[in-house]
C-alpha cells in the first residue's frame, strides 16, 4: 500500500504541474488589469512612472513565462505571494476561508450521501408508482439550478417561516440552508447512481441466490450488495466532494457563507491574480486528495484489489 501511495503521489506531480501552468496562463491572459483597477479605485492621476512602478510591484512588467517560473519557484516553497486586494498573504487568505468551505462541503457531502442512499434504496424497494415518483423527483432536483434552489429555500425557511437567518456569522446553525441546497442536487444525482448500481447487482447470481434462499431484503442489501457497490460509490462521493469544494461559489455568495467562494468571486472581480492562481492550485490539490482517498477506499473494500496491491 505504501508503494501504491508513493507512486500515486508521484504521478500526481506532473498533473499538478500541468494544471498550475494552464491555470497561470489562463489567469495571465484573461482580460483585466489589476493596475488599472487599482488606479480607478484610488481616484488618483498617476504619472507614467507611477503606473510603471505599480506594474513592477505586481510583477506584470515581465514576460508571462518568467512570471510563471518565478511563481512556481515560490509556490513549491509554499509561498503564493500577497493578495493585491487585501494585502494579506495568499496563504493567510486561504486559511481564513478554507475552514468554512471544508465545513460546508463536508456537511453537504454527508447530506448528499444520506439523500442518495435513501433515494436509491427507496427507488429500488418501493412499488412501481412510488419508484416513478422518486425518479421524477430526482430528475427535477438534479435539473434545478442551485441558485434557484437557494432562493426558494430562503423564501420558505427565512422569509416565510423565519426558521433561519440570511446574514449569519459562520456558526453551524447558519450552515443548514447552504448545506441543504448543495446536498439536494448532489444527493439526487448520486441517488440515481445508487439505484442503478443496486439494480445491476440484484441481477447478479450471488444476489439471485440470496433471494432464492429467502434472505430478507435488508440482509441482501447490507451483506451482498453493499460491499460490492461501496467502491464505485466511494469514487463518486470523492468526486462529489471535490466538486463541492470548488463548486459552492454561488451558494456561498447567496448565503453570505464566508468560504473560499466569497474569496474567489472577489478575487476575480478585482483581478487579484495571486489569489486566483493559488485557489486553482488548491482546488487541484483538493481533487487529487479526494480521488486518492477514493482509490484507497476502493482498494480497502475490494479483496481482489487489496491482494493485488499487497502483492505489488
Amino acid at each position, binding site marked *: 500500500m505504501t508503494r501504491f501511495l508513493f507512486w500515486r503521489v508521484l504521478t500526481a506531480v506532473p498533473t499538478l504541474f500541468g494544471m498550475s501552468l494552464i491555470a497561470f496562463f489562463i489567469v495571465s491572459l484573461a482580460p483585466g488589469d489589476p493596475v488599472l483597477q487599482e488606479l480607478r479605485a*484610488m481616484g488618483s492621476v*498617476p504619472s507614467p512612472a*507611477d503606473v510603471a512602478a*505599480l506594474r513592477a510591484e505586481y510583477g506584470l512588467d515581465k514576460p508571462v513565462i518568467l512570471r510563471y517560473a518565478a511563481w512556481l519557484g515560490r509556490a513549491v516553497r509554499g509561498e503564493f505571494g500577497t493578495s493585491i486586494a*487585501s494585502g494579506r498573504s495568499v496563504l493567510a487568505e486561504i486559511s481564513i476561508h478554507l475552514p468554512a468551505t471544508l465545513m460546508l462541503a463536508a456537511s453537504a457531502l454527508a447530506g448528499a450521501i444520506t439523500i442518495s442512499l435513501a433515494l436509491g434504496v427507496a427507488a429500488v424497494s418501493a412499488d412501481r408508482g412510488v419508484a416513478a415518483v422518486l425518479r421524477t423527483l430526482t430528475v427535477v432536483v438534479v435539473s434545478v439550478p442551485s441558485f434557484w434552489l437557494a432562493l426558494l429555500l430562503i423564501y420558505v425557511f427565512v422569509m416565510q417561516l423565519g426558521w433561519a437567518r*440570511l*446574514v449569519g456569522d*459562520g456558526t453551524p446553525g447558519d450552515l443548514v440552508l447552504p448545506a441543504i441546497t448543495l446536498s439536494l442536487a448532489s444527493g439526487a444525482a448520486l441517488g440515481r447512481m445508487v439505484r442503478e448500481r443496486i439494480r445491476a447487482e440484484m441481477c447478479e447470481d450471488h444476489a439471485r441466490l440470496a433471494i432464492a434462499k429467502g434472505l430478507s431484503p435488508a440482509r441482501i442489501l447490507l451483506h451482498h450488495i453493499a460491499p460490492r457497490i461501496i467502491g464505485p460509490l466511494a469514487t463518486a462521493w470523492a468526486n462529489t466532494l471535490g466538486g463541492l469544494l470548488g463548486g459552492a461559489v454561488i451558494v456561498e455568495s447567496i448565503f453570505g457563507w464566508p468560504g473560499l467562494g466569497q474569496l474567489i468571486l472577489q478575487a476575480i472581480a478585482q483581478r487579484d491574480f495571486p489569489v486566483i492562481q493559488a485557489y486553482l492550485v488548491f482546488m487541484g490539490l483538493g481533487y487529487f486528495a479526494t480521488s486518492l482517498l477514493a482509490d484507497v477506499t476502493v482498494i480497502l473494500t475490494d479483496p481482489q484489489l487489496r491482494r493485488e496491491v499487497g502483492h505489488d
Partner: protein
Amino acid sequence: MFRATLTARLAAVALLALPFAAPSANAETSLTIAVRRDSNSIAENNFNFTTRGPVAQVVETAVQPDANFVPQPLLFDAWDYADGTYTITLHPGISFSNGTPFNADTAIAALQLYDRNKSDFLQIDPASFTKLGDLSFSFRSETNSALVIENMTHRGTSLFADVADRATNPIGTGPYLLESYDPKVSLTVVRNPTYWGTPRNIDRLNFRYITDDNARLLALQNGEIDIIADVTPQMMLSMPQDGSVVLHESRPIRYVALLANVNGKAPFDILKDRAVREAVAWAIDREAIAGVLFGGRGVPAKGILPGWMFNLGDDHTDGFGYDPAKAAALLDAAGWKPGAGGVREKDGRKLTLRFLAAYPNVTSVKPMPEMLEQMFTAVGIDVDLVEVDDAGVYSDTYLANGEADLFMEFASNNNTDPTYLLTMLFTTTTPWGGYQFTAPGAHVDKLLADARAAQSRDEVIAGVRAAHRAIVQDDLTAIPILMVPNFVLSRPGLEVPMSEFTDWIDFGMTRIVAR
C-alpha cells in the same frame, strides 16, 4: 385595608419592573449596514484599511467636501496657498484615539506616512515640511499644484497615527473606533467617546459584506440588516413597493454616457465625423429612458459633470433634445443616405456602429442598450450591440484597442479634484488604457493641463468648464444620456444623511425615528 395594601404592593412591583419593561433612555443604538465588497487592504505600501467608504469612520481627512464638493475645514482649520507652498493651521484640541495630540508634529508625521505608503497621489514634497508652530506647518507641492487641498478630500488620503500595528489596529481622529474586523464577513466600529467633533447618533455600526444583490435585499426585508449601502438598479426594480423598504437618494451625480471613438481605425472610424456623433445625440429619447430606468429617478443629462459640482453651473452646456428628424437630416447631410433594409450607406459602406455596453457592467444599465439600439435603428443606424458584464473584458478586449464605436459608461466623478475625470477619460495622455480613443485632441489636452497648472481655484474651474463644454457639446466625444442619484436603501424609520459622494455618507449621523 387589604385592597389598599395590595394596590401598594402592585404599584411597588410595577415600579421595580419598569426598567425591564420600558426601553432605557440610554439603550445602545446600533445599525447593521450591508456592503457589497470588503475593499480594505492592510498592505504596508497600499494601506487603505478603514479609509474606503462606507466603513471610513475611524480616520478622517484633512478637509471635507461641502455640498458642492468644495473643500471645507476638518482637521485643517485654515490653509493658504502661494507659489506652490501651502501653509496650514490645524484645528485645536484634536487627539488621535490613542491620546496622542494632533498637532504640527503628528500631522506632518501622518502626511509623511501617507507619502510613504501610497502612490504619489498628493504630490507633496516630503522634504518640504516645515513646522511653523504647535498647530501650523507648511509644505510644498512637487508640481506647483493648487489642487493638493482638493485632493485631500479623497477618503484615501485619511490621516493615521504612525503606529507600528496600524495594519490591524488603525488609529485615527475619527468619530468611531475599530472594534472588530472579520475579513470579507464584517467590520464593526463603536463610538469614539473622546471624539473631538460632533458626536454621532449611532453607538455601533456593523458593516456586513454581502456579495449577492438579492441576498442584500432579502436580508433588509427580513429585518436582519438596517441599511444597504450598495444599491444596484436591479435591486430598485425588485424593491417591494409596500413601504417595507425605503429609498434614500442624493442629487443626481452619476452619469450614463456614450463615449465616442474619435481616433479609431477602420471599421471603427465612422464617428470621426462630428455630424454622425451629433446625429446619434439627437436620436436619443432621454425622457423615455429616464422613465424606465433607476425607478424613474434619473434625469436627462446635458453633461457628465452635474452643474452643482464645483459650482460649475448648468449654463456652459446646451445638451441635446430628442429630434429624430434632425438626426436623419444630419446623416443625410453627411452623405449617409437610406439604403437597403433601412440602413444608411455612404460610398457602398453601411452605417454600422459597434455599441459596447457597458462599464462597469451591462447589468447595471439594462435595458438601456436595447432601447438605444431601437432609437438608432429608427434613424437608419445599424447597431452591432456587444454587451459585456465585466469591467476587465470591457477595458482590455475592446476599449484598450478601440474595438468599438460607442462605449457606454455608467460612472461618476468620485474625486474632488475638478480636473480628475476629464483628464482620465478625455486626454490623449491618459494613463488609463483606451481612453485616448475618446480624447478630442490637443486643444482639450491643453485646457485640462492648464487647469491642472492653474494657481487659483477660479482658474481651475474656468478651465474645467471649458473642457467639459468641448467634450460634451462642441467636440461631442461624450454623448450624455442620464444623470442618476446615489441611492441607499433602508428599513422604515431611518433618516440616512445622503451624500452624492458615497465615501462621505455619514452613517453614524443616521437618525432613528422609529423602530
